[in-house]
């Protein structure tokens, strides 16, 4: 990348340009490119082609590099038997809702904590950040009990998308990320808007949000991947086959389904997030880099 070429790192440019340094550099680069491709792309190749192999071909030694007789039926079977269309739709639906709820509620909270600074704001932020240190497993049982019988309201959220959407709003990492970004927006802009009589909501909408597109993108992508990757929580709160997510659906079928079909289903389940990543990898990378996680 252009911005990196000027800065010096561990090894200086001069050292790399010299005869021996240059040879080492190019060898290392070749080794890294080939090694990383094998390690990170290799298994995916194995997965996509493995799902095309017949049961016998999979069990054969040594394993074949290309499927000899591609069994496209495995993919068709996975699609039909697991009702992947329904599972994928559910997962999309949960992911979209999660993005919406997190964007609206977490952005508002981070804006308040960063710019409006109400009383007890720091205490509230502290209580939120404290949850970062608590593994989800610690809370899984009382959270589940809460979701099946909400306090005061006595509603059960079982099989309701809100059981996925609302707990995800309680995401201290997002609020921290957004707050750090809002903190970096100059106070002068806020003061100027205030002078012009803009309400806090208007300032958020017309000044802060347009400047925060990159971080909002990052939060959205994290929200989608969180839903796509989560397993135990949707398994617990979406017990009906009709409301399952794709990961849970594959797990539920894995027991009695041929291995090739399970793998074919896994490939299909991976496609949407991989495409999403390919489209937004620039934002994801820059979000992780500029997102205030600099210690």
């Amino acid at each position: 990348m252009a911005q990196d070429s000027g800065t010096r790192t561990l090894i200086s440019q001069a050292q790399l340009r010299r005869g021996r340094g240059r040879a080492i550099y190019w060898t290392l680069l070749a080794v890294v490119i080939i090694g990383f491709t094998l390690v990170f792309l290799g298994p995916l190749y194995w997965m996509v082609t493995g799902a095309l192999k017949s049961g016998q071909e999979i069990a054969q030694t040594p394993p074949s590099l290309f499927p000899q007789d591609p069994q496209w039926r495995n993919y068709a079977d996975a699609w039909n038997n697991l009702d992947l269309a329904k599972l994928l739709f559910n997962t999309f639906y949960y992911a979209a809702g999660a993005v919406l709820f997190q964007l609206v509620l977490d952005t508002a909270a981070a804006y308040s904590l960063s710019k409006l600074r109400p009383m007890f704001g720091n205490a509230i932020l502290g209580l939120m950040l404290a949850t970062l240190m608590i593994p989800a497993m610690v809370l899984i049982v009382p959270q589940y009990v809460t979701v099946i019988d909400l306090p005061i309201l006595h509603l059960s959220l079982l099989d309701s998308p809100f059981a996925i959407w609302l707990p995800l709003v309680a995401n201290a990492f997002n609020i921290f990320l957004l707050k750090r970004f809002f903190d970096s927006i100059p106070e002068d802009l806020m003061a100027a808007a205030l002078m012009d009589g803009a309400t806090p909501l208007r300032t958020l909408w017309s000044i802060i949000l347009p400047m925060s597109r990159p971080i909002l993108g990052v939060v959205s992508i994290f929200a989608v991947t969180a839903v796509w990757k989560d397993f135990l929580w949707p398994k617990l709160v979406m017990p009906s086959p009709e409301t399952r997510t794709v990961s849970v659906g594959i797990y539920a079928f894995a027991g009695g389904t041929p291995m090739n079909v399970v793998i074919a289903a896994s490939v299909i389940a991976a496609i949407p997030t991989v495409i999403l990543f390919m489209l937004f990898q620039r934002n994801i990378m820059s979000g992780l880099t500029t997102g205030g996680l600099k210690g």
Partner: protein
Amino acid sequence: MAITSAPGTVGTAARPAPPSPAGPRRTSLGRKLRDNLTGHAFLIGAVLCFAVFAWYPMVRGVIMSFQRTRRGETTWVGWDNYVRILDDPSFWTAWKNTFHFTILALVLGYAVPFFVAILLNELRHAKGYLRILVYLPVMLPPASALYLFKFYAYDPSDAGLFNAILKALHLPTSQWMQSPEMTMPAMVIASTWMNMGGAVLIYLAALQNIPGELYEAAELDGAGIWRRIRHVTIPQTRLILALLALLQIVATMQLFIEPLILANGAGAEDSATSVAYLIYQHGFFQNDLNGAAALGVIMLVVLAGFSAGYLRLTAKQD
């Protein structure tokens, strides 16, 4: 820059009049109250979600761990749940396994991403491609990635990917998930492969913030590459290294889906049972939500003790 185009801007003429000198204190108090109300109004949605789905469950978890619910009747049973949990031999196996995983994950899942990031930061070419490669597995649903490992990589026959590679290199093959000794390393390998992308990118960002002059100076002082890493790279990324170490340990406490999918839960000779898996077992299979809550509280206490010790350790260094 955005302010000039903001629709709320009407120009300098629209500025509100300064507060009247008659009651500056009352105005500021009223205004403070109003500002606070607005501030809290913006907070309320997220705070309610935290309250219902994070803070309240924490308190409730502790209360539940001292109760027993039978046929809809809840009674206070004191430490009974804890005694029962501690008496169960699988409790100790699960902790042993979880610590084993934590240690291996610190060696592999923590050190490897750091060195990968250093390596990537040094390369001047194919940077974008390599970053995408490292992050790609993070985007797979964990179930997908784990079935890939379970069926293809860890196939105990010679048809498995890992065994085929070992055989081609004339190394002894392994039973992987069928052998109690290999269960943990196999789970750590899969988990590291799946998760390291995020850590690599965060390290890369930290590495890019190191001023080049520091390396320059170290080089002039005659420091070789290893000493430059030790005396410049590591101290300069200390904070982020410390933070990720802590998060990594919290994350390893969650070890659940790896045993569930790779080892069908307990694994060979209970070599895969984790504390998280035990919580799941108690809570959702043995219908023992109170025992599961007690396990959760124990996990929390262990982590809190660990974090406290860790903070003291890092505070001393500063």
